[in-house]
């Protein structure tokens, strides 16, 4: 159970965890299994002050509880209405999905095609407009492809850098797209004028693999490092404690 080389899912969990490094006592809102494991891993290792919920209203303490409660210890209560308040206060860092994402971080989860009569209706903008103008946002893309990384998104749900630059000083100070983690690579927005930049590639992935799967020109350093591998201690926490059922592999299947 605790042996073996790190899998792609485990490398992605650690890359997600890294997104929350340095955030302190704010609410981590991971959307998806691998981001959720990442947030909990960060809380259990290098970012103990992080607030992490069970996906509903219960805040989970970084502690082992009685097995009868699934090993969980509740340390607080953050129902949806309080999430909205934390969000507006800037005390949150969410990792959302993205059906489309462009070079400057505009994100779409609303619909594909013309909004008035979409070719494919998706979930809706959800909280993406409010999240992006209030607090740090990262994205998790389990299948890196040109369908997701597009020249232009069809319905701007999450606000990218160029659009945010035209808004109020409070918003431009609060707006931060921290990381994009995919099955191929880790990206950020440290390119020219906050363009998306290749930060690291996962083991076995080349820079051209990522470029081929991206629908715009990615900024990249001369030497692109490899994504850091999980430490033995991190692997033990992921495998034995956070996800003994192996749900992390489903998202990359």
């Amino acid at each position, binding site marked *: 159970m605790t042996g073996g080389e790190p899998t792609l899912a485990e490398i992605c969990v650690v890359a997600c965890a890294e997104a929350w490094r340095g955030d302190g006592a704010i609410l981590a809102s991971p959307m998806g299994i691998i981001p959720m494991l990442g947030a909990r891993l960060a809380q259990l290792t290098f970012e103990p002050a992080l607030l992490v919920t069970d996906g509903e209203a219960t805040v989970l303490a970084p502690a082992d509880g009685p097995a009868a409660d699934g090993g969980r210890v509740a340390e607080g209560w953050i129902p*949806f209405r309080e999430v909205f308040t934390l969000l507006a206060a800037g005390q949150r860092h969410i990792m959302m999905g993205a059906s489309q994402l462009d070079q400057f971080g505009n994100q779409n989860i609303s619909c594909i095609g013309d909004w008035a009569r979409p070719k494919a209706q998706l979930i809706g903008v959800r909280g993406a407009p409010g999240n992006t103008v209030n607090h740090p946002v990262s994205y998790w893309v389990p299948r890196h492809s040109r369908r997701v990384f597009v020249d232009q998104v069809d319905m*701007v749900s999450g*606000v990218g850098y160029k659009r945010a630059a035209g808004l109020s000083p409070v918003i431009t100070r609060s707006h931060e797209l921290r990381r994009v983690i995919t099955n191929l690579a880790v990206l950020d927005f440290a390119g020219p004028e906050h363009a998306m930049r290749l930060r690291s590639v996962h083991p076995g992935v080349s820079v051209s693999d990522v470029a081929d799967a991206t629908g715009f020109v990615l900024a990249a350093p001369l030497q692109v490092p490899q994504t850091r591998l999980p430490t033995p201690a991190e692997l033990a926490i992921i495998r034995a404690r956070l996800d003994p059922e192996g749900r992390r592999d489903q998202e990359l299947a």
Partner: protein
Amino acid sequence: MTDAGLPVAAMTPAQVAAELRSGMTIGIGGFGSRRKPMALVRAIASSAVADLTVVSYGGPDVGLLIAAGKVRRLVTGFVTLDSIPLEPHFRLARQAGRITLTELDEGMLHWGLLAAAHRLPFLPMRAGLGSDVMRVNPQLRTVRSPYADGEEFAAVPALRLDVALVHMNRADLRGNGQYLGPDPYFDDLYCRAADKAYMSCERIVPTAELTAGGPLQSLLINRSMVCGVAETPGGAHFTSCAPDYGRDEEFQAEYAAAAADPERWQRFRATYLAGDEEAYQQAVAALRAGRAERAGSPA
């Protein structure tokens, strides 16, 4: 006033549905596929009312009303079944251009309800600015702070409702309602934003039993907010109603599969939605009995 001199009326789901008029704006409590007043929604779906504007953190409530042809306009930030991300009826209706959508950030929806509850015309907010929510809602205006900061905000208009529908775990016949799950969602705000609110509940209990069953602050709905109570055991099915029951994932999966296929939907509707709420609950009980038998029988 009712026969018993109680402040609110004890009603059936059909009686609640009969209070609606075509063209009304209704708000539906719960969140996604969680603690939705589904018994009331089912009653509306089989009533004669039409052309509704529905305000909701959308789940299968929205799907069922769309499938029944009741929705003219939907005001929402999302429609989802949670464990199944996309709601098929909503998708098909949007792709066919059969409903009009007012798509807002989910925090804007909260703010619109809060403005309505406080009798304000709007509330200022940063959400929406810079996004295409402003493009697809040309009616949205911005407002500038009159103070030294001079910041510009989205002016989120009040979402005033004709009728609100919510589902609680417990209620008394005076119109006090209690949630026992992890989250109140926005059910109190929906009631406050509405001219009239109707509450269904898993069980009507004597008033003293409310605080015996949960802490004082679980009494989310007070009797000034509602004008009718309906006892509907299983009334949130198939959405979650913790701690009374979780989401019926197997049933929801069947709903979603049927919703995506017109032929299967006709069968689903004939099996579960042709009769009244009692018939629905009997059909669900029969399904459960069948499941239990299959699980118990030798392979």
